[in-house]
């Protein structure tokens, strides 16, 4: 029990949230905000792997999100519901309860494969030039979706709501919240393990000095493929979850604007700080909601806040430190429990 204290804490927190949602003690709006926080945590911490830890500048994260969103949505609608294009359900609709995570991961895997579109060029180019490639990939994905009429083209794709309803018909659990909690926890946990292993630190070596990394035995190509696939796969996961919250997606959601939003969260939190990314995803999502009454003026206030942040604290909230570096007591406390 004491060994994985953080894990147990998160489990207790998740169960609390699920209970509150189940007994409808939380307004639908508050639930929605919580879900967006989870998704933003996945997006910002996965992008931090590339922009923070590996030191590349990826500005096409929304493109991978789109791949995950569309693949998992199409799979779910095709398999579990009757749809005017895809016909009657292929599997029994109630099996969605078990197969939902599988389709979600299939979407993530598709997004990871799309990540190769950036990983391969990254062997030969980096910095600004690679940034342009990520931008291009974002546009390629968006334009492709817009031009495939079977999945709705620019009008968007819907029907995922029915899948969730089928799942809720089997067991009355707030399913989408459940899976967001699971995958948010999983993402942060996987990333934490990755960046604290000697294996994962290979990408930090690439950031610091790529030539030295390659010459001192780091297979930089393999590490780049690993990092880009992991990062874009997680973006795909976030996309899949996102698609099932509202049950409707359209390519216009996954533009460079969305990518920029994720980038802002990464820089707000601090490059190369996982806890910074988590923190900033929470803060940024909440700020967006708090400023909602300002309507259009919101998009004046938020950039202004960012300018102030960049002037006063260009390294972001956490810099490249983790929560345990800022509060050494926290680490001592955790490690004391770990030993027990």
């Amino acid at each position: 029990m004491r060994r994985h204290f953080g894990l147990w804490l998160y489990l207790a927190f998740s169960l609390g949230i699920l209970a509150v949602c189940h007994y409808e003690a939380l307004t639908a709006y508050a639930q929605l905000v919580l879900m967006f926080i989870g998704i933003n945590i996945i997006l910002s911490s996965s992008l931090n792997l590339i922009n923070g830890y590996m030191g590349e500048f990826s500005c096409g994260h929304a493109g991978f999100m789109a791949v995950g969103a569309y693949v998992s949505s199409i799979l779910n609608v095709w398999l579990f519901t009757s749809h005017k294009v895809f016909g009657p359900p292929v599997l029994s609709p109630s099996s969605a309860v078990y197969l939902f995570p599988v389709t979600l991961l299939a979407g993530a895997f598709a997004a990871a494969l799309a990540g190769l579109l950036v990983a391969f060029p990254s062997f030969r180019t980096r910095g600004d030039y690679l940034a342009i490639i990520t931008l291009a990939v974002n546009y390629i994905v968006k334009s492709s979706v817009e031009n495939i009429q079977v999945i709705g083209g620019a009008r968007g794709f819907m029907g995922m709501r029915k899948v969730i309803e089928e799942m809720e018909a089997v067991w009355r659990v707030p399913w989408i919240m459940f899976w967001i909690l699971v995958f948010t926890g999983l993402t942060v946990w996987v990333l934490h393990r990755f960046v604290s292993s000697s294996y994962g630190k290979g990408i930090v070596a690439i950031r610091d000095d790529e030539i030295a990394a390659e010459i001192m035995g780091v297979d930089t190509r393999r590490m780049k493929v690993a990092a880009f696939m992991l990062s874009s796969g997680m973006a795909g996961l976030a996309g899949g979850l996102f698609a099932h919250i509202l049950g409707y997606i359209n390519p216009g959601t996954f533009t460079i604007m969305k990518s920029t939003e994720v980038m802002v969260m990464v820089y707000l939190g601090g490059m190369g700080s996982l806890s910074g990314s988590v923190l900033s995803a929470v803060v940024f999502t909440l700020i967006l909601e708090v400023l909602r009454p300002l309507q259009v003026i919101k998009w004046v206030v938020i950039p202004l806040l960012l300018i102030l942040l960049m002037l006063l604290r260009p390294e972001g909230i956490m810099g490249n430190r983790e929560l345990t570096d800022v509060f050494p007591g926290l680490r001592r406390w955790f490690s004391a429990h770990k030993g027990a």
Partner: protein
Amino acid sequence: MALLEIRKLTHYFGGLRAVANFNLQLEGGELLGLIGPNGAGKTTVFNLVCGFYKPTEGEILFQGKDIAGLRPHAVTAMGVARTFQNIRLWNTLTVFDNLCIAQHFRLGYGLADVILQTGRFVARERHVRRTAEELLEIMGLRHYAGENPGNLPYGMQRRLEIARALATQPKLLLLDEPAAGMNPGEIDQLVESIRWIRESFALTVWLIEHHMRVVMSVCERVQVLDFGETIADGPPEAIKQNPRVIQAYLGSEELSHA
């Protein structure tokens, strides 16, 4: 069989011939020096051997296998490690992590092991850490384990570069101007540690150096490059007397004064 055998190595940068018809037989356990005026092609030879450049022509045989054109990390995996003339440490990582990451190619576990923290991961990671700790101890860097390399005194950074190269467990160690920027005291220490490392790790050392004091006191054999061509090869005493070397490399001055 020679540890390293280079045959007719030639390299062009566009129209510039950087290395011309370079030949070498390096036996295991040797301590060879490579000297020559600036721009003679010494570092290019190192870059070719460690796989950073693909030679225009020629063969590089390491333990009988042709390594020309292999990617650098694969060459390192075969047992060739190097240090850099302009220090290239990973400055946002700790000294300790620098020594762990240099073992990257032989971590022996993959992404799945990292995520699941399998037994293999735990065992291998423990081994990597122990190796790093041993090197910290041996190289006198224990005190700096948690520091970023950029904060270390210059001599210590050079030491860390050597420690990092040793972390790859090489058979052949290439040192590119290890004494550059060091004061006389540090140079004496360096000479001592090069000798000592070579003995205790049973290494073959090949070094580029401008400090004649280092070359003459530590090397058993010296090779001289000028404009990409080998103009002399022999024991330090003979090199000192060689008129071509004196003319090309030092003008009319005596070698020992350099």
